[in-house]
């Protein structure tokens, strides 16, 4: 199939900044839901942050979570409605800073949900503050001299936190190239297939550009991910209890 049509879940133009990776990730997620015929059943637990901008543009049932609590809301939804695909869509600030506890405990309980964690190394919506995932030396509006790891600790690698847990699926991708985007799509599909087969917690972390707050041109942002960010956050599948997707 060469036909590439805008998936049905994308009901309006997105509201992200030029070059923002969320737009690509939204489309891949929508494609997977469409292809798996899950769009009509899916329930999303939405983070606070740039993810909020999806609420009118991404056409699945949404529940707006308080900042950081998306995984806890998803737990409540999934326990009550186990037949529905339930996912969180969160940035790194939401899922790994204020919501680190909720994110980790959903994984520790092996909740049968899918977490889409978008890592752009920064708090985007609030104006580019340092995130737990910001790189050493990274200049942000709250680390104007560059992130000092002596004072702020090392960047948080969520995959390392989760890879030894009893969970269903764990992967990290990026959206910097056709190859990487196709790979992320496969990861997201694997994640939802894990959930739909009752395989437990599935999480896909996606390295994504934030040209606006990185103060970088979009093309340079993609190069920055490939050349620098992935050295801290290697790509790949880290936990895969089920088989390959039959895509």
């Amino acid at each position, binding site marked *: 199939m*060469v*036909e*590439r049509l*805008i998936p049905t879940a994308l009901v309006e133009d997105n509201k992200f900044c030029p070059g*923002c990776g969320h737009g690509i990730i939204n*489309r891949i997620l929508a494609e997977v839901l469409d292809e798996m015929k899950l769009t009509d059943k899916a329930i999303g637990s939405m983070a606070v942050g740039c993810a909020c901008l999806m609420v009118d543009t991404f056409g699945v049932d949404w529940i707006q979570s308080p900042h950081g609590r998306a995984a806890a809301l998803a737990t409540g939804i999934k326990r009550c409605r186990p037949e529905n695909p339930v996912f969180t869509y969160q940035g790194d600030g939401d899922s790994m800073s204020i919501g680190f506890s909720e994110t980790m405990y959903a994984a520790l309980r092996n909740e049968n949900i899918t977490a889409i964690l978008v890592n752009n190394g920064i708090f985007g919506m609030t104006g580019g503050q340092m995130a737990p995932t910001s790189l050493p030396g990274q200049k942000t509006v709250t680390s104007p001299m560059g992130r000092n790891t002596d004072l702020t600790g090392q960047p948080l690698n969520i995959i390392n936190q989760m890879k030894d847990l009893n969970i269903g699926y764990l992967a990290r991708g990026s959206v910097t*190239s*056709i190859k990487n985007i196709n790979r992320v799509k496969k990861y997201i599909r694997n994640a939802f297939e894990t959930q739909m087969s009752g395989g437990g917690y599935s999480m896909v972390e996606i390295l994504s550009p934030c040209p606006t707050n990185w103060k970088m041109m979009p*093309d340079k942002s993609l190069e920055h991910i490939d050349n620098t960010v992935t050295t801290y956050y290697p790509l790949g599948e880290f936990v895969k209890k089920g088989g390959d997707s039959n895509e």
Partner: protein
Amino acid sequence: MSKKDNTKSVLTLHPERCKGCRYCIPTCPKDAISISDRINQKGYKPVAVDMETCIGCGSCYTICPDYVFEIKEVQ
């Protein structure tokens, strides 16, 4: 695949959605995409596609964050 059943992949462009990030330009294997001179309703200079050169491979669709491109099969 498309050749077998005599269909052709044709690009549909939605330039009003374009925010001018230019991800598609280096991604296009045929260098068929450029920035136009006009300004769209979002206030950006949208991309333009040389339809003669385009092979409908869908690379632009894949990289575009703003759903500017679609590839349709036509007879």
